């Protein structure tokens, strides 16, 4: 018996990465998954003002954990990727209005958002810390009553959930702005994501930034439109596989320099 011609690297690779040509099937995927596969392109919303989740790298190209996730989803689907930058406040609306097929934008899963979009199984947690500077005018949350705490709009949800009533919450545009305000004595503390805390600590060692408490550790996931069960199942399968093969951990280590706590697999 003559064996088949060598499969060869190119053929094998093409099977894994080339756009899938759907045969005339009795059960092709419907909805968004069907359109993505038949059109050969995935429109993925990303938030590029949120290192290490999404930002512009030194080469001017989008980079970050969530950008990497979007790239991998497109690779897994065997389609081209079209990244669509989204503002913080636009992320779920872009999904529910169909401007993007899905969003990889560190969107925290909340009951309110679940009424508007669906989420794949979470693939990360967004730890929000309350931090103060070296003079440490604050050592517990209870001491914040009547005092000023700085937040960015992205952390305001977690901040307002845990801070005591009577805390003066002020929104700042940048964490550096908040750090300067704390050093000047204009604020007692600031709520910020753990990656931002680590970055500020490294870039401003003299500020002696110190964590007071964990304000929240909510999960985030890929957001997709409601009513897309085939796409949802594909994404849940993808999350399972990438958790299992260590991809999420590798991306976390690459973009934050720190190890990642595995997500529960139920």
């Amino acid at each position, binding site marked *: *018996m*003559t*064996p*088949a*011609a*060598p*499969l*060869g*690297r190119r053929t*094998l*690779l093409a*099977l*894994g990465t080339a756009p*899938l040509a759907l*045969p005339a*099937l*009795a*059960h*092709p*995927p*419907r909805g968004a*998954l*069907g359109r993505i*596969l038949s059109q050969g392109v995935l429109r993925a919303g990303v938030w590029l003002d949120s290192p290490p989740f999404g930002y512009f790298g030194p080469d001017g190209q989008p980079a970050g954990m969530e950008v990497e996730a979007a790239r991998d989803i497109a690779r*897994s*689907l*065997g389609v081209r990727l079209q990244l669509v930058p989204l503002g913080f406040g636009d992320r779920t609306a872009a999904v529910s209005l169909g401007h993007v097929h899905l969003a990889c934008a560190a969107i925290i899963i909340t009951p309110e958002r679940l009424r508007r979009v669906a989420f794949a*199984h979470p693939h990360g947690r967004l730890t929000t810390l309350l931090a103060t500077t070296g003079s440490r005018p604050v050592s517990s949350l209870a001491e914040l009553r009547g005092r000023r705490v700085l937040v960015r709009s992205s952390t305001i949800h977690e901040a307002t959930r845990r801070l005591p009533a009577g805390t003066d919450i002020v929104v700042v545009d940048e964490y550096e702005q908040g750090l300067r305000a704390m050093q000047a004595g204009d604020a007692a503390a600031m709520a910020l994501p753990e990656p931002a805390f680590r970055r500020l600590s490294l870039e401003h060692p003299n500020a002696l930034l110190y964590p007071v408490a964990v304000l929240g550790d909510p999960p985030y996931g890929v957001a997709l439109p409601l009513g897309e*069960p*085939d796409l949802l*199942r*594909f994404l*849940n*399968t*993808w*999350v*399972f*596989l990438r958790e*299992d093969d260590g991809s999420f951990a590798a991306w976390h280590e690459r973009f934050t320099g720190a190890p990642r706590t595995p997500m529960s*697999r*139920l």
Partner: protein
Amino acid sequence: MASAHAGNHGEALGRILDQRRLRIIARLDMPPLGYRDDRAEPAGFDVAIGRMLAEGLGVEPVFVETLTADAFTRMSQGEGDIICHVPLGVRAARQALLTAPCGRVYLSLASPGWLPFRRPSTLDGHAVGLLAGGESEAMVSEALPSGSRLYGFATLSGLSAALLAGRIEAMVVPRPALAPLQRGIPQLDLTHRFDLAPRWISIGLPFGEHDLLRALNSLIFLARTQGRLAALSEALLGLPQPELPSF
């Protein structure tokens, strides 16, 4: 009451229950995973999983024999309701809905006794055969050096014949399938060299059939928590079953 035509989305579970049969697409040429016993009846681990799911649905199992490369096509053309033994991977996930895992199997490389390939790197420049179709091709391609020549075969008998004839120098097969091969071609002194990677094994079903997916996932969950999956793995594959994740 007869169900609607098989081609309509979301009606597979109703049709299966109405017709009182579950059509299961499976390989039957790879003992102990799937094969025909002395009475020519389907047997093996994959067959046992299929029978268990049919029992859970309260219907009769009907096995549709196939080759790996044909399985998705045959299901999409309505020849079967589910596919047994689908390695979990993104390529499979864009061809069908996949259940939570019901088992795990390693892909292993084996070679004749006089060709001791002890590590993947030693296969550079050598011919390796594997069963075509499915996630295995991509997995093997990533695991072996780019200089190795990979040949795909539709059947296990074709793969064995090529190894006997010296047209390939090693083969990649699921680990449980190795022992029957060793007994079948003793003149080769077929020897296990190393494992490539573990594969979670799931059930494949057509897109749009989410009621059926939920039913199968529930049955797999029950079988897992009741110890039935572990017992099947031990009895039919000779393998202890790892903790099975769910999603």
